[in-house]
């Protein structure tokens, strides 16, 4: 094959003609040190500002700083953007930027045939090739013939650019570190995006390092100019992706971690409570601790980095007991450690929110990969009959909504609420129509009001919640504890009939919440048909896309996406009965499906995927087709 290494001095070409496309999937892949996450975020920003809908998927190596050039040190950032509604980060890549051989070998298989491959040819040296496991230089073989390849000596191009900048005092290493900006510039050009937001961001980021700011901006602009001015290979087109039809409003990008933190803060405000977030670092939940620790500007939020997860959950219980909103967040193994503590919150009927950013398991498993395999743990994973509320967020923006809802339910019903997100949602981002907190209806929780004829386990007739009277409240002295309590008085009771009553009350209180949460809607499609694809959590995107595609083909199927995992929506059983078949794609070995079968006696079938990666749309389509009586 004949790879054309572009010369920066190539001739100016004819004005760009941009091919208009509906959507595109781009992935930046490089060494951990290559700054791919920054590159991706900046491309995302420019794309969002250009009015596209989008979904991103950052994927980091498990190692902190893996040796340069290794396959396990590759870091990637993927973005799917378009003028239509975007629901996933995309199955197949339209453009792959590979900054070294390791990035190429680990990512190439996701590039669609005839997709555009941009490689930094300068990194394809013997040492790097060997580290990546290449025997020969792939750029010199014809395995890449199925793609459109743009192999550029980005090192040389960057160096040339920066050398042209006057008066900066930088090392060659510093120059080479700007390669990512050069590549970003080129891709920005490719899609007709503006470099201005990135330029501005670089100015702020390197405010104290003026020279570094200058050379990064120079590289960025050079990459862009390279696209603009150089005659690229005949088969490399420039594209135009028109803005999406989004609802009017103010938008921003939001990650799931941000969505949850801001939702918790908003929930605490609506409940008129200070919030104490108690956590022990663990991937991918740590981000929430970082974000909340950073919210120091008077939000009434305190963070407590506990000595372990047991201390985290029990400190959250102590905080709620003390009249604040106690929140704890972790991931699978950490949630496992909280199990006993959560039982105390159920027994004493104190409100806490437990956020689980799920990851691959069992045990340490795949800490940096996504999975949604903690549903069993959330619903069933405690000793004894120990019911609580389980909610799941379906997207970064939905994280905000569900976090507010978690606070509402916890404080209204005096119960722990487990909110499930996952590694994918936590880190990926999407444009988000920013809500107006000022316009939201408060659901004030009072912790210093003593009801008439107070008893610690007296109950609200509607909610079955007991009163929340924090120590320090005049006239409210009482004692609570984990031993079974006498109905109403809360005194220790070993009475058999009382234990039955209390067990029933605990179960009924949670079950009743089904009347206070929305009925299950049909996310996409009609209320009856040949097939319902039922999902929860971050499978929202791929299921939605698959159902849209198949409906476009004329199939009678629907997408039903569940946010209320426990209690399940009150109409769900009846709704599911309207479909000839029910398929449940899950990034686990079939957990929601167990719940649906047990609850509704519906022969729901599982489509499990446990690879640490989100579903591809096609995987769901293929499985659905089998139910729809077709082989694809």
């Amino acid at each position, binding site marked *: 094959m004949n790879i054309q290494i572009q010369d920066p001095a190539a001739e100016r070409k004819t004005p760009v003609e941009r091919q208009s496309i509906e959507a595109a999937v781009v992935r930046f892949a490089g060494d951990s040190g290559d700054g791919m996450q920054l590159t991706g975020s900046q491309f995302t920003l420019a794309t969002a500002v250009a009015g596209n809908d989008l979904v991103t998927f950052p994927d980091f190596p498990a190692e902190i700083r893996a040796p340069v050039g290794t396959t396990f040190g590759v870091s990637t950032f993927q973005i799917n953007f378009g003028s239509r509604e975007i629901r996933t980060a995309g199955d197949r890549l339209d453009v792959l930027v590979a900054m070294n051989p390791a990035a190429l070998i680990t990512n190439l298989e996701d590039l669609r045939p005839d997709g555009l491959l941009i490689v930094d040819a300068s990194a394809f040296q013997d040492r790097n090739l060997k580290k990546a496991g290449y025997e020969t230089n792939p750029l010199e073989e014809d395995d890449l013939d199925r793609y459109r390849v743009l192999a550029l000596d980005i090192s040389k191009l960057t160096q040339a650019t920066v050398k042209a900048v006057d008066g900066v005092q930088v090392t060659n290493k510093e120059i080479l570190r700007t390669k990512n900006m050069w590549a970003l510039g080129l891709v920005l050009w490719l899609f007709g995006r503006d470099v201005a937001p990135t330029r501005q961001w670089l100015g702020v980021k390197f405010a104290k390092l003026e020279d570094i700011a200058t050379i990064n901006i120079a590289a960025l602009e050079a990459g862009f100019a390279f696209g603009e001015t150089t005659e690229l290979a005949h088969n490399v087109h420039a594209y135009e992706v028109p803005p999406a039809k989004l609802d009017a409003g103010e938008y921003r990008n939001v990650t799931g971690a941000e969505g949850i933190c801001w939702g918790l803060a908003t929930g605490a405000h609506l409940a008129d409570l200070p919030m104490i977030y108690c956590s022990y670092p663990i991937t991918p939940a740590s981000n929430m601790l970082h974000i909340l620790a950073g919210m120091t500007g008077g939000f009434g939020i305190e963070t407590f980095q506990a000595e372990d997860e047991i201390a*985290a959950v029990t400190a959250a219980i102590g905080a709620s007991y003390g009249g604040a909103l106690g929140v704890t967040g972790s991931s699978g193994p950490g949630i496992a450690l909280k199990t006993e503590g959560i039982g105390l919150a159920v027994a004493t009927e104190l409100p806490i929110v437990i956020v689980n950013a799920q990851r691959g398991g069992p045990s340490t498993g795949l800490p940096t990969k996504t999975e949604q395999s903690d549903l069993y743990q959330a619903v069933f994973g405690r000793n004894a009959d120990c019911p609580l509320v389980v909610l799941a967020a379906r997207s970064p923006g939905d994280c905000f909504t569900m976090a507010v809802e978690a606070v509402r339910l916890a404080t209204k019903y005096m119960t722990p609420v487990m909110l499930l997100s996952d590694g994918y949602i936590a880190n990926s981002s999407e444009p988000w129509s920013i809500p107006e907190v000022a316009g939201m209806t408060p659901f004030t929780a009072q912790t210093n009001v003593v009801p008439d004829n107070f008893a610690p386990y007296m109950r609200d007739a509607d909610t079955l919640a007991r009163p929340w009277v924090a120590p320090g409240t005049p006239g409210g*002295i009482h004692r609570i504890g984990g031993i079974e309590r006498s109905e109403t008085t809360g005194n220790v009771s070993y009475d058999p009939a009382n234990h039955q009553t209390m067990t029933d009350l605990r179960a009924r209180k949670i079950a009743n919440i089904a009347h206070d949460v929305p009925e299950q809607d049909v996310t996409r499609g009609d209320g009856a048909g040949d097939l319902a694809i039922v999902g929860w959590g971050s499978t929202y995107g791929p299921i939605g896309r698959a159902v849209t595609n198949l409906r476009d083909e004329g199939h009678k199927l629907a997408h039903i996406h569940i946010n209320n995992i426990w209690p399940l929506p009150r109409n769900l059983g009846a709704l599911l009965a309207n479909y000839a078949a029910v398929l449940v794609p899950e990034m686990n070995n079939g957990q929601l499906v167990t719940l649906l079968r047990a609850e509704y006696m519906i022969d729901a079938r599982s489509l499990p995927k446990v690879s640490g990666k989100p579903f591809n749309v096609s995987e769901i389509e293929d499985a659905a087709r089998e139910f729809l009586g077709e082989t694809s």
Partner: protein
Amino acid sequence: MNVVPELKPDDYATDQEVRWCPGCGDYAILKAMRKVLSDVGADPEQTVFISGIGCAARFPYYMETYGFHTIHGRAAAIATGTKLANPDLDIWLVSGDGDSLSIGGNHLMHLLRRDIDLTYLLFNNEIYGLTKGQASPTSRPGTVTPSSPSGSYDRPAHAVAFALGSGAGFIARSYDVAQPHLVATMKRAREHRGTSFVEILQNCIVYNADIFADVTDKKVAGDAQIHLEHGAPLVFGKDGDKGLIFDVKTLSLKAVALGEGGVAEKDLLVHDETNAVLAGLLGAMDGHALPMALGVIYCAPERPAHRPAHPDRPRGDAMAALLDAHLRKGHTWHVA
């Protein structure tokens, strides 16, 4: 805070029947505790007892204050959360030796190093009472129990040494039936800012009866105990005829008879409760070769609080505005 009417010790008693074994040392501690609160005029509504699980941990049920009987070993973490939520509360933590030093060791360590402002009462009976008499980490080697029928093997944990090693800022010791001493010690503990750690030797009459008798028995108390007083020479003995000196060669304490070999009171070591090294030496004395130290063993000079004060927050619309601004920080764009 509201004005608290004068309350008598009994006013701090609840209507719940006390359910310890007759003769248990816990009764005496309960009595002392009620007296402490009465003496200092504690507001029951601002007072909270938080406990783990064990016989000792039933304590909150018997105090007419706020109370939380939690789970085994976690009271320190729970109390930390409660204190963060409401720094004004006067929190008392009650925990057994198993609760504190077996399952709860890690939380105790971190409570002490964080120096959360509360009083920690460790009821040390050197046994697991509630679960019917297994060896505890403080049980002496060779203790025969259902789980150690040939005698316990492990070297015991030492509450005071552990607290010092964990960075405690206040360490004291007393025992169940030493009423005035116990009351005074608990008052000192309550006054101290930061975590005040008090080891209370407690007689489990059922599973480890009289294990401390060689120190607490009236007949031997004089020689087996030394009552510490800051700034006062370390005198002990039934007739106040003995004292402690420091032996530089071995870096250890030594008991001497006053008068003998010309040793006078002025030659004795003077108790300095701010000296951690001295605290380590005194804390280690077990009542045999050297008398057991009772009272305030260590009280660190005021240490800076690093944790910022409880965060203030605006309410209602002001908070909504704050949040709305926060959500709009960074890059946003408008879709028309």
